[in-house]
């Protein structure tokens, strides 16, 4: 992967213990169903993916291990690994083998291993891993030489200047980078797959960027801490998954009431309850939309690309601070764990605008003397005023009230805060012909896979409308949806949650839905078929 200088690759944890690597001579960022080369390292691996194997799939592995009718090119990973000293080296041997088959540069491979273990402060692992890599590489040479394998079946990797400066990162890191760029200096969270990567990333870099990173006793504490941190002047976030968000629901309502900014990263996994902790789904959009009792505004962003993960996270802090509302970043296990190379990220210039004022003695935290519902935030001990945040219905001073007139004004104040946001909302992204008949609609992590599926299909009048801001539904949506003859909503969930949201927001009904909810992301080849099928069924008509 790291050795794919003339290509773009994508990898993600597909089983508890499997990884898909896609190598191409043009940028690819989506998984496919088809498997060209399978290196099964454990007994059940072939069975797990059996429905994805075709006649042309090459399998390389410890032949005696597998109870299969299929041809297996015999390579004794276990023996080789044990020779080096531990069965876990089978992984690195496999990487070496792959590198050999694709004629990659072994020197760079070695260098990567050195860097990797040095960074992890596990230098003692370097020599054995290098030996493993070499073994695998040599084994590839042997396979080719002994004609077990035709080397021309594989792409040969060459260096490319074009992507020399690209970053190779996964979604979790992109969110972490975005948070740092957005001025995040406080994270309180409770570990939960697949969201933990962000907590780990910010913890690792806490020293460099002056971040307080606290593992809370539970998610309730995490969200309440983060709101406290905003109150005291920090830019704070939490990262969690569905079950954790469920526990934060009351805290989100608190943020709504005290008009605290808040940034919540929600990495979705299949539910309900514990569900499939290491799999992917887009099943918690409605939870994010309605989490919290009572009525208050919020923003929900859902990056479709690694670049967007960086972009929207950074922006989330700005929006939260400016509009004093909770901002959600919705990702999923697929986004968190997928890597591909991207162009360098730009680092924001200029001072981070905090929208915080130095208070006067007569400061009122909830002054109604505002025309957009937003009262400038004060911070304790920054100025002469007192800052009173109150979870009860309150008056302008933040003191508990039962005055019905004040109640109405405060409800209207809070719920009007996003009126101005429209101007800086993220419009949906239209890809493909402007004069489409068929419009595929996606949000969040499905960006690349839908795009690639459409590219494959090459239907002249089909386009993709992708949303990285899912709520409030951007105003342009109506215009786009109206134009389509057939709308196909594509979601990684059971109920088509975003389609429902679009329907209430635009009044336009969406009849065709392609939904996947087995815990895996879409595959571009599989999705292309489904889109094709959906179009031919309806003839591209409503």
């Amino acid at each position, binding site marked *: 992967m*790291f050795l794919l200088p003339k290509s773009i690759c994508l990898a993600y944890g597909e089983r508890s213990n499997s990884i898909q690597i896609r190598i191409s001579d043009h940028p690819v960022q989506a998984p496919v169903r088809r498997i060209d080369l399978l290196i099964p390292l454990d007994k059940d691996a072939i069975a797990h993916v059996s429905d994805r194997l075709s006649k042309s799939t090459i399998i390389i592995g410890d032949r005696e291990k597998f109870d299969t009718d299929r041809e297996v090119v015999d390579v004794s990973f276990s023996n080789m690994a044990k020779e080096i000293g531990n069965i876990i080296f089978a992984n690195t041997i496999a990487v070496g083998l792959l590198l050999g088959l694709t004629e990659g540069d072994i020197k760079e491979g070695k260098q990567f291993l050195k860097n990797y273990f040095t960074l992890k402060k596990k230098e003692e692992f370097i020599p054995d891993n290098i030996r493993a890599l070499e073994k695998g590489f040599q084994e590839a040479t042997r396979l080719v030489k002994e004609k077990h394998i035709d080397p021309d079946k594989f792409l040969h990797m060459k260096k490319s200047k074009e*992507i*020399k*400066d*690209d*970053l*190779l*990162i996964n979604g979790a890191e992109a969110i972490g*980078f975005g948070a740092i*760029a957005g*001025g995040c*200096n*406080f994270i*309180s969270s409770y570990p939960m797959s697949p969201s933990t990567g962000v907590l780990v990333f910010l913890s690792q870099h806490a020293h*460099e*960027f*002056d*971040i*307080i990173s*606290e593992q809370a*006793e539970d998610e*309730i*504490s*995490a969200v*309440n*801490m*983060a*709101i*406290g*941190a905003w109150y*005291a*002047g*920090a*830019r704070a976030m939490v990262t969690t998954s569905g079950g954790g968000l469920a526990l934060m629901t009351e*805290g989100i309502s*608190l943020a709504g009431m*005290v008009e605290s900014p808040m940034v919540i990263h929600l990495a979705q996994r299949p539910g309900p309850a514990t569900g499939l902790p290491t799999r992917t789904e887009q099943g918690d959009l409605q939870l994010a939309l309605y989490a919290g009792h009572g009525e208050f505004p919020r923003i929900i962003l859902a990056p479709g690309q690694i670049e967007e993960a960086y972009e929207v996270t950074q922006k989330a802090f700005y929006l939260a601070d400016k509009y004093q509302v909770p901002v959600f970043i919705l990702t999923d296990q697929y986004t968190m764990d997928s890597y591909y190379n991207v162009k*360098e990220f730009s*680092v*924001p210039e200029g*001072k*981070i605008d*905090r929208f915080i004022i130095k208070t006067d*003695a007569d400061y009122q935290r909830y002054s109604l003397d505002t025309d957009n519902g937003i009262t400038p935030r004060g*911070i*304790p*001990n*920054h*100025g002469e*005023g*007192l*800052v009173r*945040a*109150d*979870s*009860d219905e309150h008056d302008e*001073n*933040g*003191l*508990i009230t039962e005055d019905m007139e004040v109640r109405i004004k405060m409800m209207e104040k809070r719920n009007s805060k996003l009126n101005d946001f429209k101007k800086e909302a993220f419009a949906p992204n239209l890809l493909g012909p402007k004069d489409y008949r068929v419009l595929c609609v996606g949000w969040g992590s499905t960006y690349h896979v839908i795009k690639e599926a459409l590219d494959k299909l090459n239907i002249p009048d089909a386009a993709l409308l992708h949303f990285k801001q899912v709520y409030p539904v951007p105003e342009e949506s109506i215009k786009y949806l109206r134009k389509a003859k057939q709308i196909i909503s594509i979601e990684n969930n059971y109920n088509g949650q975003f389609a429902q949201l679009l329907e209430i927001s635009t009044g336009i009904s969406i009849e065709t839905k392609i939904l996947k909810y087995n815990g895996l992301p879409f595959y571009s080849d599989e999705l292309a078929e489904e889109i094709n099928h959906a179009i031919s069924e309806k003839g591209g008509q409503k």
Partner: protein
Amino acid sequence: MTKIKQFEIEQVKTAWCPGCGNFMILKALQQALKELSLKPQQVVIVSGIGQAAKTPHYLNVNMFNGLHGRALPPATAIKACNPELTVIAEGGDGDMYGEGGNHFLHTIRRNPNITHLVHNNMVYGLTKGQASPTSEFGFKTPVQTDGVISEPVNPLALAISMGASFVARVFCGDTKKTADIIKKAIQHSGYALVDIFQPCVTFNKVNTFKWFKEHTYDLEDHDSHDRNQALKRAMEKEKLPLGIFYQNEDKNPFEQQLSVHENKKTPFIMRELNRQKLKELLKSKQS
């Protein structure tokens, strides 16, 4: 709003019943803050929900009146983000030992330099008289019709056994002593628990002013640095001792262990993103 000169708000209208012990606690707290010569702007009271938790509405300080049971996490975070603030978490026995029990445990573990005031009236006042975690065995209420069947929480023993660095109990009937111990708790560097016996004249007809008078006595001849002894005293049941049970000045507070405050004292809002380092870190991810 009145001028912020002192901690009293003029003409404050409380939601409390006449005769409630909360008035005394309010007074003691104001007294303590005044004696410490703190500026109202420096003080943040973080509270939950309940009658006790309304206290910060009635005095002139910064206030974070959050959720029922959830005062300690924001209090910890506020102190962590700005160690120059004097942070007090305040609420009732239900708030802090019931709904908020888990935060109680883990805040003790963290040992932030905050003061934790718990109005312990052995009942849920605001919600009209159900049992609280400190209600005595057999205490009858509209919900506990056969009387409480669970053993009451002993917050002092719990805190001491968990390694809390300052643990005290007072009775609000003695305003002077209450003020005095609150003051010491604020001065203590680290987490300081003050469990405050407070009669609820409306919903607790058992643990009245008289009852507290008769069932308490002042801790004397007690070495508040001896943890085993402190635990023993905290477990006394016949008559309940009042005073500082335990104190450990050697524990490093949470926020002082955070690397963010190691070299800089700048408040968070004044800090800027280190763009250079971000650029470098991004570069390190080049493939």
